[in-house]
């Protein structure tokens, strides 16, 4: 942290209006995941006040290919809510809007913020209200934010009300030796465990309003077995036409956020070159990981430089959750194949007849 920042911190009285900070202001337009709004990875500029606005949207969404409907509660309409990026020493000034069209009170607990239940105690807004919270980014890392209304915290969180804040070191990311690390692209994946009630015939139930789904959903939640585990709000949100893309030689930052439940991302066919498993950038990243563990209620980050083209699957490596419940994403990587890293030396063909396991000749003629 620069000397100017330190001086400013010491000079700052405990309570002070944002206007008194006399810092430059920047307004950021948020974008939906897996994209992240444009940001500097390292900055020479001094601290500023970065303004964000999150509008809470309660809405019905479809969460799988069978068309299962789900009453979601969201920050800004997406599951997870958008990522908000600032630098260490910046102030985030967040306007939280709860439109009159919503049915419930909401708030926000930012794990990156210090005090008042992460801001939760100062941000209760009823439908038709808004609130402005300012907090100072003192610890670099990726952090979960989520809604935390008294008595209903888990329900709001598993209904979609969670997102991620990224606080970057002012001079950027570094490896254990202090060498600068940069990314060409960043993707932000939020994992949701969803608990959809079923009727007596085993079919998913639908409800007129989010409120009507509460009692049944809580009953499913209490058994701790999700009906869906998905990335970015639905099965297939990041596969097929929605697959993420990269090129051979590009370094990609993958931020993985899970507000409620443990998970274990794995890039099939690739690795984590540098992984901040607990997501906090003052700790040196681990190198060459195969799978990394994201504790429920935290976000982690991994850097990977693609070396081979093809389709990569990025999964929760509890493969039941990945394949049966939905926690899979794909990255389509273009570029030139490197035979040195991998080559199919002999394509699949019959086992020679004199070797163990050779097929009966009768079975291999049409």
């Amino acid at each position, binding site marked *: 942290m620069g000397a100017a920042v330190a001086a400013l911190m010491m000079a700052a009285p405990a309570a002070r209006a944002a206007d008194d900070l006399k810092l430059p202001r920047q307004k950021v337009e948020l974008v939906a995941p897996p994209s992240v709004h444009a940001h500097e990875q390292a900055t020479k500029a001094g601290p500023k006040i970065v303004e964000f606005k999150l509008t809470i949207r309660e809405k019905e969404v479809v969460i799988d290919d069978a068309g299962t409907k789900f009453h979601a509660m969201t920050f800004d309409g997406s599951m997870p809510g958008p990522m908000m990026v600032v630098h260490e020493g910046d102030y985030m000034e967040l306007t939280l809007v709860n439109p009159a069209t919503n049915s419930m009170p909401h708030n926000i607990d930012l794990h990156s913020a210090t005090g008042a239940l992460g801001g939760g105690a100062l941000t209760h807004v009823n439908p038709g209200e808004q609130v402005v919270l300012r907090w100072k980014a003192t610890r670099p890392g990726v952090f979960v934010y989520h809604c935390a209304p008294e008595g209903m915290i888990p329900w709001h969180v598993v209904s979609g009300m969670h997102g991620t804040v990224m606080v970057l070191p002012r001079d950027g990311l570094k490896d254990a030796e202090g060498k600068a690390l940069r990314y060409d692209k960043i993707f932000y994946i939020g994992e949701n465990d969803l608990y959809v009630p079923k009727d007596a015939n085993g079919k998913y139930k639908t409800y007129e309003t989010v409120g009507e789904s509460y009692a049944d959903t809580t009953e499913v939640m209490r058994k701790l077995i999700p009906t869906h585990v998905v990335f970015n709000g639905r099965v297939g949100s990041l596969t097929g036409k929605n697959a993420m893309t990269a090129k051979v030689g590009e370094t990609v930052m993958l931020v993985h956020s899970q507000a409620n439940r443990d998970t274990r991302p794995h890039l099939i066919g690739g690795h984590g070159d540098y992984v901040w498993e607990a997501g906090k950038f003052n700790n040196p990243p681990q190198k060459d990981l195969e799978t990394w563990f994201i504790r429920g209620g935290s976000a982690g980050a991994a850097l990977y430089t693609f070396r081979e083209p093809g389709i990569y699957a990025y999964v929760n490596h509890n493969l039941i959750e990945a394949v049966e419940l939905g926690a899979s994403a794909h990255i389509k990587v273009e570029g030139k194949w490197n035979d040195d890293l991998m080559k199919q030396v002999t394509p699949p063909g019959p086992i020679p007849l004199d070797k163990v*396991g050779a*097929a009966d000749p009768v079975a291999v003629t049409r």
Partner: protein
Amino acid sequence: MLILIKIKTAMLAGALAAPILATVFAPAPPHDQDGAPRLSPTSFSYRAAGDFSQAGRPVEGPLRELRLPADLVIMKRQVTVAEYARCVDEAACPRIATAAGAQDAPVVGVSWHDASAYAAWVSRKTGITHRLPTDEEWTFAAAEKARDEAMPLVDPSDPAQAWIARYEAESARTRPAATAAQPGGTFGTNSNGLDDLAGNVWEWTNSCFVRVSLDGGSERITNTNCGVRVVEGAHRSYMTDFIRDPRSGGCAAGVPPANLGFRLVIEPSRSVATSAVRNVAKLLRRT
């Protein structure tokens, strides 16, 4: 593995031998074809099913002009919930989970084994051989509803190119609007008078998955896996024979068959003996 393959071969031989027994020992009752259209052979184009390779690289299966050797009698509609239920009631077909309601909707959630058990049961009941179609027969019967999903030509030295091309083609498939099986006739009638081809029910065929080498200008099957059968519908797919509820996910992309059902070919009784003889002759030649 060797044992497994031998068992499969034996099962295949049994299935082929069955028609002779039916013909020789059981006098055939009147042939009720349930309005099943009889299709006279005409020339049709057919993309061979399976994995094909040339010089060790994957290539598309050859596109051929085929003509079936005889008339094809095939059910107008897919086998229904009610029809399958009768087989279950007689303990000849496995009980499967079916959606409540429409008895005349096609039965879905059936494996190749379930479908084959049904075919064997109907054959016993009627004395007339009913069986799943081959992929060639299905394609001929489906006519304009059969789709050829040939992949674009790509650089054969780069395995990722073909892989990405396939991924994109599979991702571009459209998903059926309704996933639940719809009442018979919902998806229209084709030029051969058959209903609901390439709707939201994919149909089992009897064709086994094959791996074929096209090296040296000839076609050589290097592996036959009858644990995986060709299923046909809005796109062709290969399905493990005990699967009832197909899905994609994990590393796979694209739209899996929404439902698995089937319709049967009815062997015209006069040709049963000849085809059976032909089949047995083929078997004898192999062993």
